[in-house]
């Protein structure tokens, strides 16, 4: 008996004014500015950065590559945004990627691809439900509840693949990670498709509002008649499923499942993407679009460092500094402290 979908009383005609929207969402402006800045810096480093050329039936270029390689993180970010909006966190997505990859790569050896993919996604769904039950039903702190699966998950994945890297040669599964549709890599369609479905689900129904309400104050939401347990269970399930799809992409891309390294530390990338996108870790509000920009920022940063010819060693340092800078820009107290001297002069 969960939430009924509530139709808004009056259907507002959506008139979209870009400038008004930005004036109302200054944070969005900062985030978008950061992305544009990083892209421009990339353009300065590599003059061919924005060039997209058509070759062998597919589009090639740095921008396409950012979208392609960023697809997995974008998927994770989609689920993570909803989880963080309920004041939760999901540390287990990297492990879920490994489990889903291990299941489908092992099954594909003697099963039709559809079965392998469905079982892989099913395993991911189960992981999500497990997290959800721990958090929503047993009221365990999200960071601890998902830490369990983060620790155990890779052990389980290793058990499934018997400690080896499960290699396969199935065209269907590798299509998910490396296929080309209309000249564009298939993962791009997959991540954007999932994003649209999730967005429609949360923003064109009342679900998004309910998620924000639970994140802002779950006790008050409960008394207001919202089934907070169900909402939390749902967001962790969605996050697990998104991680599963990301797992299929990563597995298909390398045509193998590496239980130890598949999706290692991607949970941290996804959490950073959400935070850069301006969704507070304290829950209560979320913006899927800005989270996607956050994911793109992380990926463009990464690609930028790669094409800059900077030694790979600097990758993490640059990433840390840029991320810290973006976070500081978004921090209200930081802006207050930095702008203090200027304010005094004008006042």
């Amino acid at each position, binding site marked *: *008996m969960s939430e009924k979908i509530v139709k808004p009383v009056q259907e507002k005609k959506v008139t979209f004014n870009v400038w008004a929207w930005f004036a109302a969402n200054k944070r969005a402006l900062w985030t978008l500015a950061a992305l544009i800045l990083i892209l421009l810096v990339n353009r300065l480093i590599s003059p061919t950065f924005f060039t997209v050329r058509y070759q062998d039936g597919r589009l090639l270029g740095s921008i396409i590559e950012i979208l392609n390689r960023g697809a997995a993180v974008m998927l994770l970010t989609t689920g993570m945004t909803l989880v963080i909006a309920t*004041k*939760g*966190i999901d540390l287990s997505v990297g492990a879920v990627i490994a489990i889903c990859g291990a299941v489908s790569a092992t099954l594909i050896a003697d099963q039709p691809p559809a079965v392998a993919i469905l079982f892989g996604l099913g395993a991911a769904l189960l992981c999500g439900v497990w997290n959800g039950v721990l958090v*929503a*039903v*047993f*009221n*365990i*702190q*999200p*960071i*601890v*509840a998902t*830490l*369990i*699966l*983060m*620790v*155990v998950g*890779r*052990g*389980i994945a*290793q*058990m499934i693949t018997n*400690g080896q890297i499960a290699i396969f040669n199935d065209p269907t599964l590798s299509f998910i990670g490396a296929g080309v549709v209309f000249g564009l890599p298939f993962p791009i369609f997959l991540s954007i498709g999932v994003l649209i479905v999730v967005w429609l689900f949360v923003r064109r129904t009342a679900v998004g509002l309910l998620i924000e309400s639970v994140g802002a104050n*779950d*006790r008050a939401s*409960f*008394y207001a008649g919202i089934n*907070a*347990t169900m909402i*939390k269970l749902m967001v962790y399930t969605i996050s697990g499923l998104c991680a599963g799809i990301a797992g299929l992409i990563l597995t298909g891309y390398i045509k193998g499942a590496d239980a130890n390294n598949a999706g290692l530390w991607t949970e*941290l990338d996804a*959490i*950073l993407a959400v*935070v850069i996108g301006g969704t507070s*870790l*304290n829950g209560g509000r979320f913006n899927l679009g800005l989270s996607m920009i956050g994911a793109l920022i992380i990926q463009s940063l990464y690609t930028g460092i790669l094409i800059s010819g900077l030694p*790979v*060693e*600097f*990758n*993490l*340092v*640059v*990433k*840390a*500094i840029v*991320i*810290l800078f973006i*976070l*500081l820009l978004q*921090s*209200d*107290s*930081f802006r207050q*402290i930095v702008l203090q001297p200027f304010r005094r002069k004008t006042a």
Partner: protein
Amino acid sequence: MKSRILPLIATFVVFVLLYLVGFQRFDAFGTTKVLSNVLTDKAFLGITAVGMTFVILSGGIDLSVGSVIAFTGVFCATLIENSGWHPLVVFGLSLVIGACFGAAMGAVIYYFKIPPFIVTLSGQFLARGMAFVITTASVPVTHPFYNELGNLFIRFPDKGKLSFVAMLFLVVLLLGIVLAHFTRFGRNVYAIGGNDTAALLLGVPIRNTTIGIYMLSSLLATLGGIAYSLYTDSGYPLAATGVEMDAIAAVVIGGTLLTGGVGYVAGTFIGILIQGIIQTYITFDGTLNSWWAKIAIGFLLLLFIALQKFLTAGGVVWVRSLFRRFMPGTAKQPVPASGG
């Protein structure tokens, strides 16, 4: 008060049970060699986990410790081998760097109100990146001082030997217990973890304590890195990945609440010993694969979290409320789904 000490007792009981299971199957479990080897193997993790205990007691988290260990290892190895500095000077310098690093993270957390999770995550990237910048290769250390420290141990009657790093671990542990339970700083940490608003109103110096907590954590992680460097005689930038999660697991298994305010440093010690015993058992057995260690530790995590939940939520009342939730008709009193 009773429910506070119960998780610690439960941890101790689990440790004794695991030890007895091992002893029953392998006679060698009874020797001091096994215990002293566990202490040596887990010394770097233990030293780090003592710092982590303070962070978690204050309601925060420190994800940067694994990278700090790796950075320290590489930093020490290159300065000793390539620049010919004396190890003691390098150790001192790296401890200063570690303390500054932690203090900086604490300051960012306090002044800019960015969650510790995110700040220390950036710190993790930064420290790991700096380790890569220094060198991408594994640097062996051949300085005679390392050998001297390696030959410094206390021998037990039955061949077991307490190595220098194990002694270091035990000293840090004792200092940690004193700091947590018998000093003003320790009391401030507990106060902030229990309720930071109340702590502020009571006049607890939030700023200094917050910065101090993260400084202590990074300082001990650096010391853990030095222990790791002595233990492996080398520095490698990819070393100690995921140690932060092992440290957090040890703290939680040791009975410290992740919401802060409740826990004992001594519990963390037992948490470390449990991890060590599980690993020793798997090594002794020989047929079990390494992933069973992960699964066993995860299972223990679940067990202890469930136990804590059971105790803090008033045990029976909590179980009854669970049943109510699944039978909507009987829910006369609404059961709030309150989170942290």
